């Protein structure tokens, strides 16, 4: 059996902007939401110009792209940012010294600080903290702890519009692999050489 290579497809046509993914992620991963720090975030944007009918609302979910060439990992001096064989990029908070080089290097703005204060507030807010013991510069983990148990990431599981699909790029029968192979879903800013593993189906073709 080949090692899986995980990826996500996000369909901008079906995201309704309910933010359930943000809520599910923050409960699952105990993120410091009180400081507006999210592992995944859904932007509410306007696209188009002119009359009311020509302007559309676009909901744009974002998260760490689990890049195959992650600049956040290559700049990380402590080795706290590392990559699993299945493509998931993780952060070891005990090794991380919080220099923020990863946040500077990440083209996708996927990193956020977890401070001592956040740890204290987190304990008040969520009770026992399952994923972190020390400050770090954190990010989405593709819910690796769930994926290893055969579950989907919390955001995918909860998405009411089925806008998020999670799958294995090494399995040609996987829906995600098929969508990516079809060319309909594209990664963000691929020209930077990061080889992201989050692909977006654009809503533009349908709306223009």
């Amino acid at each position, binding site marked *: 059996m080949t090692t899986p290579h995980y990826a996500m497809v996000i369909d901008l046509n079906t995201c309704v902007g309910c933010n359930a993914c943000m809520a599910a992620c923050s409960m699952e991963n105990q993120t410091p939401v009180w400081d*507006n*720090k*999210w592992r995944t*975030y859904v*932007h509410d*944007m306007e*696209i188009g110009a002119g009359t009311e009918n020509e302007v559309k609302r676009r909901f*744009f979910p*974002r998260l760490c792209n689990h890049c195959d060439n992650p*600049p956040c990992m*290559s*700049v*990380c*001096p*402590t*080795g*706290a940012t590392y990559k699993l064989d299945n493509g998931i990029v993780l952060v070891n*908070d*005990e*090794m*991380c*010294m*919080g*220099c*923020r*080089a990863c*946040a*500077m*290097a*990440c*083209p*996708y*703005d996927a*990193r*956020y*600080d*977890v*401070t*001592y204060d956040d740890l204290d507030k987190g304990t008040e807010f969520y009770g026992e903290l399952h994923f972190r013991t*020390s*400050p*770090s*510069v954190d990010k989405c983990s593709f819910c690796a702890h769930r994926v290893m148990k055969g579950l989907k990431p919390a955001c995918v599981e909860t998405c009411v519009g089925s806008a998020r699909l999670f799958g294995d790029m090494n399995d040609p029968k996987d829906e995600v692999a098929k969508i990516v192979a079809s060319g309909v879903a594209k990664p*963000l*800013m691929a020209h*930077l*050489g*990061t080889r992201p593993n989050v692909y*977006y189906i*654009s809503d*533009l073709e349908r709306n223009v």
Partner: protein
Amino acid sequence: MEGMFYSTQELWTWWIAIYLFLGGLGGALVVVSGLTNMYVKEHKELVLWANISSLIMLSVGSFMLFLHLLHHIAVINVLNPMVLINKPDAWISWGTQFIVWMMVWSFVYTYPYLVDSKFWRGIPIIGGLIGLFGWVGNLSLRFHKLIGWLAVINGIGTVLYTGLLLQSFPAVALWHNPGVPLLFIVSAFSTAMAFLLIALYVFIKNPEDHGLKVLFERSDVILIGIELLIIFVFFQFTTYGLESARYTAKILWNDMGWIIGFVGFGLLIPFIIEFRGVTKGWKGSAPIVLAAILVLSGGYLLRHYFMYAGVYERPYPAINSTHHLQMDGSVQTQ
């Protein structure tokens, strides 16, 4: 997807600019003083001035960086020399090791001069401590050139690292290009020449150093000239380059602090003063000292503006920044 968003960052700001400035200056001081002492003219006072100042600068710079870490204890992971085997792709790993070893070797190299120095030996407690470890000086003298070269090599690494660190961030056009390390190297050596000129003219004041002063002035004029050319190249690169670079151009070339402060007072004016000094000479030392002070201020401003003017391009607005750039070059603060 269409419609990109442009923003600067607020993660690494003035304190990183100070760190980069002091790192570049401190590294170049060790290189210039070491090579001068070994191959141009033996000069204990110059080495003392350069290497002790470098030690203080690197300590201050590194301490500022340390203060801004989120998880201080984990710094041990980069202080361990094994980091070069575990994380050779990260420039902070190399930089930390270069800085630490440069401080160690330059201090050991300078030690025999400390032992001989009336000034340092006269300071209560410190003078006594210097005498107590006199054997370090004797050992250092036995391998002085080797130790000098170890300090110089780590000094070169420190200077190189400051630019390569910025270059390793791929999302920002201003930083991710080979011009940045070159610019930072030239600027670091120029500021080091300026610092040594101040030391020679204001503090050491030895008439026998005339030749050395001329050498440093000439070198500085050439370095400032090259820096001006590199800045012109950056002007072209940002003004007619990638979209994020164009936003950078709008930030820099609309800012009087950059145009008048850095390019004018930090480069052009000292260039003119020092050029006049090299070609026709000045009666007193004041113009050269003034030019050197301006060069040092310019060295900081360069790094300050580089940190603030780096622009990210993304398909959505940044969460890490409250500064969002508009098409007309204005900045919208959230």
